């Protein structure tokens, strides 16, 4: 009966769709990252910035940049920016420091995750050096001043007067499998 082969053809096609959509669910992970990189959705900042050309410093403009530091749940470290807010000229290289202290009696590893508000300012915030590019390992009760060097792009839209750069500190000790001592 031809109906049988017709049916098995339909079944094969449908199973193909099922497998494909299962894969698509996972494909959304890299797709989402690419989309965020391209558009700066979610206020995600790009990685290490290397200048293609020297930018003109816009002496006529001042942008306020605010720094926030917060701990993810159960993260016991002390973590704060040493300067809470500053006014910078777009195009100029600035340096600030964040302070972190492991208040526990164990060696721990932390990862800082940045976020920029407003989102569309994310692509205009270039970081030439950032503690968020690496994981930070601190011995028990050790503290550290962590540098951040950044340039606000001189092309940043006039409408942006204030940029907030927020870091959340995550405990990744277990994930990287650090032996407890």
């Amino acid at each position, binding site marked *: 009966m031809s109906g049988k082969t017709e*049916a098995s053809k339909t079944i094969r096609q*449908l199973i193909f769709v099922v497998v494909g959509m*299962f894969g698509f*669910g*996972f494909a959304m992970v890299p797709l*989402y990252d690419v989309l965020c990189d391209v558009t700066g959705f979610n206020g995600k900042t790009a990685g290490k910035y290397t200048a293609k050309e020297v930018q003109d410093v816009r002496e006529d403009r001042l942008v306020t940049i605010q720094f926030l530091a917060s701990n993810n749940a159960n993260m016991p470290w002390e973590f704060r920016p040493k300067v809470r807010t500053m006014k910078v000229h777009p195009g100029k290289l600035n340096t600030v420091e964040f302070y972190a202290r492991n208040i526990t009696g164990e060696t721990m590893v932390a*990862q800082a995750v940045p976020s920029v508000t407003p989102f569309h300012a994310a692509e205009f915030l270039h970081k030439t050096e950032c503690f968020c590019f690496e994981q930070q390992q601190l011995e028990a009760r050790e503290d550290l001043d962590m540098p951040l060097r950044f340039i606000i792009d001189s092309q940043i839209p006039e409408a942006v007067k204030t940029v907030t750069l927020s870091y959340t500190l995550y405990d990744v000790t277990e994930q990287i499998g650090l032996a407890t001592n």
Partner: protein
Amino acid sequence: MSAVIEEHHHDGHHHGPDKGIMRWVFTTNHKDIGTLYLWFSFLMFLTGGVLALGIRTELFQPGLQIIQPEIFNQLTTMHGLIMVFGAVMPAFVGLANWLIPMMIGAPDMALPRMNNYSFWILPFAFGMLLSTFFMEGGAPNYGWTFYAPLSTDYAPPSVTFFIFAVHMMGISSIMGSINVVVTILNMRAPGMTLMKMPLFVWTWFITAYLLIAVMPVLAGVVTMMLMDIHFGTAFFNAGGGGDPVLFQHVFWFFGHPEVYIMILPAFGVVSAIIPTFARKRLFGYDSMVYATASIAFLSFIVWAHHMFTVGIPLAGELYFMYATMLIAVPTGVKVFNWVATMWQGAMTFETPMLFAIAFVILFTIGGLSGLMLAIVPADFQYHDTYFVVAHFHYVLVPGSVFSIMAAVYYWIPKWTGNMYDETLGKTHFWLSFIGVNVTFFPQHFIGLAGMPRRIPDYALQFADWNMVSSCGAFLFGFSQLLFLFIVIKCIRGGKKATDQVWEGAHGLEWTIPSPAPYHTFTTPPTSMKEAHG
């Protein structure tokens, strides 16, 4: 098992069901499996209902009375999961099993053995899900939407059982949907072209495609959770380079089509019932089919309207707002067609028709509040309030659930051969109708006033409407025991139903005897005159 039946097995032509419990365990008969699905769904409906009454008991008054917050969170989560995956979806699969072969003139579903597996996975999936109530740390407590990292880093240990239960439900749904599609594509009687199929078959055909497309995505997202929890990945953990907002994107990519999965078959049911009792052909059959397909397509490109407040760019918010509002167009076409079908019809108001008309009115109210929620600036005010609760309960309870009840009253004479008790049926309808509105309409008010959802306690100014809502919930809940009584009474006896059952009923299922014999259309019907009303 008697020797006679044994012998029937050997020659492969047994004419009736096996005897005893094994009939139900091993059955491959679409009518048996439909019945199993419907009973299972009703059991889950009562289970989820008991959880809902627990919620409404706690919310009867402000303050913490009976249920502590940890338990309350488990109740809301499990109520949602059970009603969505255990009550509404299996009920529609049950209707599909019973009706699709009879409506298209097929002897059975295309893949009967797989049909049996699809059903029997479910009791195990829900057994496992319900067993989490007795585990250390309790049942899932992160909402039916199980946003990560709440459902990963901060979840009770039972989350793993939840994940596997979702996997099992997904496998069941996917197998059931493949079965529906293969049946519809390959087993239609000669002359039953696609555009002659009853709308219930059409809506299920489209629903099955939606299920096949999105249940694997749900399986994917819970698998990512599983890997985050147990295998050290960081899909949703920002500390490891993942992103919690990604979870919401993947979840709602499944979740939005899912809400149409729960309503499209309801459209099909109502499109069968209204023409019967208006004694007119369905107005605008073709436009109904195209509207259903449009809604299904749009459901894939509007998911982020559930996420307006997570922080998506303005352009994204505008796109998702307008795309969402666009859904009102095909939905409006449907409502218009139902009203136009009733227009100048010779209407009578038997119980199925009452439920169907209530569906049209109350579903439209739910759709309208959906449009309000689609407006981005307004949604920032409504988000996560009781207004949202009111909205989705209006489309799911007097929407999907009423359509399922309408379907049961409409087709039960065909299933059992007996008419149900019309007086009791109408009583059940009015109790349910009043109960539903008393429960959910006040939730619009307290939501607009700012009461957040998923909380066991609330500020004093919400007290009065919460008390009204709880009273309505108990009225609605206990009315369903009357429904159970009516169904059992109808199975056990009653006025004999004719083959056509309803004076205005058209369609192949009304050409076979009542009750429908165990095997129907073993030879395909020849005349398509009776195809869709």
